[in-house]
């Protein structure tokens, strides 16, 4: 098991190096000259050149790259040109916001989609099978921003059930003391029920938006994978041995069916990280997605680089987590590695 983790980590190193190089080149290749953007429309040629020198963008690429790598090694992601803030610090405060949203969204998906898929597979042709099929199709065909706006319209504007969709917490409340950066956890740790409930209320709609987006692939994969496993010989053996149907479905069938579901979950999570950008815009969520989009529009390299690197590190961590889950569930994976 440990050798499996170690191997996968080793495999991740080349991809991380690749990401470092690609982010560097990509941000340099972006259209627009940050120095010109910065100096403003009225600036003289000389003022722009001065800013360029200050930013270091007048140096040859290889020199810039060397500086970039040595900064990275010190955990230094540079400063945002627009806000002047340290990118590393900015990401550190915004990442938990995005992560909390994504993880809650993911939890909602798993809670909804997996049972749906299992029930659809064990009762083909029943109403739950049809519902699963309808929801799967609808979920795929609705764009994220549309679902988000629809939910806001219904639950905030029409029904008034949810608070105004702006940010992580009602403006009259102050954030819980920073421990993990996850408001729900921090509020729970501080035993602040009011903040916990308020944060949860803010979270529900954006998390649901993400969940609806991810529901279709997970439900569909769970159903397909369960159907395949339910017709396997060993399930027949389990049935012939008279094991209870819950034992057959959970311990025998589902544990075997879960591997492709986990793979899909990983893929969906990667998509969710991307879909976050739109959801964060719709719900004015102070996450890294909206941060990156603003920086991109302003040709502000450092935050974009920081964002891409963070995402890359998350993907690597995600894939590692999936590999570990595989190893834990399937003994054949443990042995073959």
């Amino acid at each position, binding site marked *: 098991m440990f050798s499996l983790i170690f191997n996968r980590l080793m495999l991740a190193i080349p991809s991380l190096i690749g990401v470092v190089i690609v982010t560097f080149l990509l941000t340099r290749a972006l259209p627009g000259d940050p120095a010109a953007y910065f100096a403003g429309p009225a600036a003289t040629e000389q003022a722009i050149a001065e800013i360029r020198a200050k930013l270091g963008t007048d140096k040859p690429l290889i020199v810039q790259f060397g500086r970039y790598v040595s900064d990275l090694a010190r955990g230094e992601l540079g400063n945002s040109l627009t806000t002047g803030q340290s990118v590393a610090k900015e990401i550190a405060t915004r990442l938990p916001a995005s992560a909390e949203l994504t993880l809650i969204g993911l939890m909602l998906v798993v809670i909804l989609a997996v049972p749906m898929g299992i029930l659809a597979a064990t009762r083909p042709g029943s109403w739950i099978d049809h519902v699963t099929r309808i929801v799967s199709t609808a979920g795929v065909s609705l764009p994220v921003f549309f679902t988000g706006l629809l939910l806001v319209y219904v639950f905030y504007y029409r029904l008034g059930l949810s608070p105004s969709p702006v940010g992580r917490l009602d403006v009259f409340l102050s954030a819980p003391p920073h421990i993990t950066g996850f408001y729900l956890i921090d509020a729970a740790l501080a035993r602040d029920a009011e903040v916990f409930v308020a944060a949860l209320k803010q979270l529900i709609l954006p998390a649901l938006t993400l969940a609806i987006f991810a529901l279709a692939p997970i439900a569909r994969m769970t159903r397909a994978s369960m159907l395949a496993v339910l017709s396997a010989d060993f399930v*027949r053996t389990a049935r*012939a*041995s*008279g*094991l209870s149907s819950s034992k057959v479905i959970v311990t*025998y069938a589902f*544990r075997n069916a879960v591997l492709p579901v986990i793979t899909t979950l990983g893929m969906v999570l990667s998509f969710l990280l991307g879909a976050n950008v739109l959801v964060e815009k719709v719900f004015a969520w102070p996450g890294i997605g909206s941060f990156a989009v603003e920086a991109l529009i302003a040709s502000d390299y450092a935050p974009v680089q920081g964002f891409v690197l963070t995402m890359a590190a998350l993907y690597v961590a995600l894939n590692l987590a999936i590999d570990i889950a595989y190893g834990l569930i399937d003994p054949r994976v443990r042995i073959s590695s």
Partner: protein
Amino acid sequence: MAAPALLVDNLSVEFQTRSGVVKALEGVSFNVAKGETLAVVGESGSGKSVTAYAVMGILDAAAAVTSGRAVLGGLDLLAASKEAMAEVRGREVAMIFQNPRTALNPIRRVGDQIADVLLRHANVTPNAAPREAIKLLETVGITDPVRRAKAYPFELSGGMCQRVMIAIALAAQPSLLIADEPTTGLDVTTQAIIMDIIAERASATGMATIFITHDLGLAAERADRIVVMHAGHVVEAQRTRDLFAHPRHPYTQALIAATPGHTSRLAELSTIGGNLPDLRAAKLPACRYAARCPRKLAICDSSLPSIDPTAPEALACHNPVSSPPMGEAA
């Protein structure tokens, strides 16, 4: 004669498929006595497995039992409630399958798989179950059972997996074991060992065994009695020795002629003419062997002699091969 361990009477099964209704079994009747080993033989597609699945109540959703009873210990398995069947399955009647490697859960330790059945059917506590599982592994001749109990199926050989399957099937000491081609795909030595283990367990507990195979040679060696099936019908049943000495149904005769024996050379080996009829056909002849049969009479298309499900012998033929007259053939 004492009540049989299992009596199957007039069993018919149909499958609903996209290309029509498959009449997989029609009027299948036979019985197995306590402690007896009954072989069920027939070509591929003759309905041997479907018969077993129907008795076990594990037919798939497309199947429907359209007639018949399967009586085991006074209970009609085909009419029993789901709950009653769940109690019987694995406890009173157990089954082992072909392909032992795929028949075991690939990601569960074999000891745990045995323990699951013990916990379900035998009166053991969760604490005692692993120990009992190891004991069972020992009874099916697995050496180093403590270590093997912790193994996953992919770490064991095919023969080893089949022993585990037998341990699972015998965990609750069933009164009937159905073994569906338990040795197909295993080498000859392992085949013999597996069959010995089953026979030894059967004689130790007085368990009845239904041994499904298309290997007539193996049936000849192992069975007390043989039921011959063809295209979803039982065509003949006799004591093993009698069946080989005096096969009465033309199909049985053809089947024996097509089996390599000690005496016959390959050149003398005949093949059975024709194919199994298409079981989806709207109108099948009364005798489903009629189209292939060299002894066919006009009556064979319209009627079939009925079989006494409780008798040890059976013959469903109007024009049987050799003469000694039998009641069933009238």
